[in-house]
């Protein structure tokens, strides 16, 4: 009798709660899986299929399988290579800027200063804003006739966004402004994790400030800094919102903008799917290189 009771017990307890552990688990997991499949997995697979067709979402014409046609056309198009070059230049300027500004800010904040918490919070604000809003108000800041930037820098009626050479820099500066706080945050975490006694040991060992920075601080922060760089590179590759709002120059046509135009203005759905896959492969390849460096830095 007692044996029967013990075997029954888990079920009775579950019934008392109303739901068994298994059904609670399913309740949480099933919606997530469903969303993932509907919004991530299905589009990923479907777009892979359309990448090999001449499908246009704007017409009712059926999609024709054209094999590698889209890829061949894209990779032979000099304009696409120009978009890639522009994007690469943009990523380098923007990520480099973010690393220098962000790490510099972190170095400044990594010491006892008054109102440190408040200053850190204020510095984090830009990355919490919507990129579209950021684009809109930087457009005002850059305005040649009443923009505050020209006013403060005494540049007269300098055309930040209309100048084909300057426009990409202007867009990158906005990205640096917006995302340096992210690098700062991660760097700050890395810097504060360096044990204070190592600096004391270096001081005893007669190391100067530069030697200490390059031999102790930087190597120990490198892994987390590398993570920041990976994130920012991947994100910078996808930059769309503020760049699209700020400038219509061909010199600022990043791949995301070109992709958007191809997909939703020209309705070349198949072609743009192929393009998106090329971008994905490039980003994954670059990330892989970083991850290799990251692992090396970690091993050190």
């Amino acid at each position, binding site marked *: 009798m007692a044996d029967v009771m013990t075997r029954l017990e888990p079920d009775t307890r579950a019934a008392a709660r109303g739901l068994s552990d298994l059904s609670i688990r399913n309740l949480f997991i099933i919606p997530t899986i469903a969303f993932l499949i509907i919004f991530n997995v299905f589009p990923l697979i479907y777009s892979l299929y359309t990448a090999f067709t001449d499908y246009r979402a704007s017409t009712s014409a059926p999609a024709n399988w054209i094999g590698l046609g889209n890829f061949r056309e894209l990779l032979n198009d000099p304009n696409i290579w120009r978009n890639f070059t522009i994007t690469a230049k943009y990523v380098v300027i923007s990520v480099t800027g973010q690393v220098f500004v962000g790490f510099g800010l972190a170095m400044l904040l990594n010491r006892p200063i008054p109102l440190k918490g408040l200053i850190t919070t204020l510095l984090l604000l830009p990355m919490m804003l919507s990129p579209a809003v950021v684009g809109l108000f930087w457009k005002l800041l850059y305005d040649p006739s009443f923009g505050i930037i020209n006013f403060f820098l005494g540049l007269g009626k300098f055309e930040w966004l209309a100048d084909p050479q300057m426009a990409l820099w202007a867009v990158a500066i906005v990205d640096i402004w917006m995302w340096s706080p992210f690098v700062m945050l991660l760097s700050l975490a890395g810097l504060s994790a360096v*044990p204070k*006694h190592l600096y*004391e*040991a270096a*001081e*005893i*060992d*007669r*190391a100067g400030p530069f030697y200490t920075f390059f031999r102790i601080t930087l190597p120990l922060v490198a892994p987390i800094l590398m993570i920041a760089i990976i994130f920012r590179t991947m994100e910078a590759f996808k930059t769309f919102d503020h760049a699209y709002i700020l400038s219509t120059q061909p010199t600022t046509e990043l791949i995301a903008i070109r992709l958007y135009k191809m997909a939703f203005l020209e309705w070349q759905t198949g072609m743009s799917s192929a393009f998106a896959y090329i971008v994905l492969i490039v980003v994954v390849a670059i990330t892989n290189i970083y991850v290799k460096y990251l692992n090396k830095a970690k091993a050190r």
Partner: protein
Amino acid sequence: MARIELRNIQKFFGAVQVLKDVNLTIEDGEFVVMLGQSGCGKTTTLRAIAGLETVSSGTISIDGKEVQDLRAADRDIAFVFQSFSLYPHMTVRENIAFPLRAVRMSQSELDAAVNEVAGVLGIERFLNRKPSALSGGDMQRVAIGRALVRRPKALLMDEPIGALDAKLREQMRAEIKRLHISRGSTSVYVTHDQIEAMSLADRIVVMHAGLLQQVGAPEEVYNRPANLFVAQFVGSPVMNVSDIAVEGGAGAAVLSFGKGTRLPVAGGHVGHLPGQRPVKLGIRPEAVLLRHAPEPGFVETETTNIEPLGSHEIVDVRLGDATLRARVEPGFVGDGQKVWVGIDPERAHFFDGESGMALRRTA
């Protein structure tokens, strides 16, 4: 090699005064151990000598030159941290070479210096390993190597073996002593372990509450403690301390332990004690004597607890209001047995009941 002098050192952390007028001279080549409980100011003193901590007032001089306003890097002093503080991303070789590389020593000189130190410490096998791949003892050897490699004026050590297990501690203690003897460098060593202090020091500095309690050779600190704190801090097991009343005078006297328990002693041993003031008797367990049969100067009592420690046993006996701990041969007596207890008056210490200062015969 250096002579270190501390004059009137005071240190405040906010409103808390952690060092109260510390005066100490460490002679060239001497091994001085600063001994005290945590929070007594010993580590602060050491860090002040190294330049890792500023002092609020007072002067620190090394070889006659005042250094209290110099940076740690400019004092030419090496420091071994309790946490080892090895650079985790560098190999052992790079760690040891760090202080030499920081001052741009040539590669050939640097290699020679690193190899020499590694040989002395027996860590040649690990030179290409990272610190994380080493045991605690080897990490500390590397830390000591990094400190010795540049032949500093003085070597400061902050509980360098405190993080190691007991067996390794004993081994490293012997190694540190051997290194000190062979190199002859001025060394200041901080510990809370009185056995370490006794075995390593030329002189022990006992600190408590930011004050130096006693400075002296290990035997002196052990045999002639300046006050109750030193008496109870140095020595294991701890010295027995009990309130007593002294009755009688020059010829013969008795020490009353309360409840009518009185031990007679020769008057010469207690003649110097003040009449009306409370007095404490301090007696180390090895000076508490037990007998199986009555003898003059011994009183009857019972054992209340026995701690066997292998080479000897610690026996607790009641004596009036006090419990005395005696050190005896293993198996000398059983628990709850009748014994006769007495003390060796030559090795009895008397302290002022209020100030805790030692009351010594002036003769």
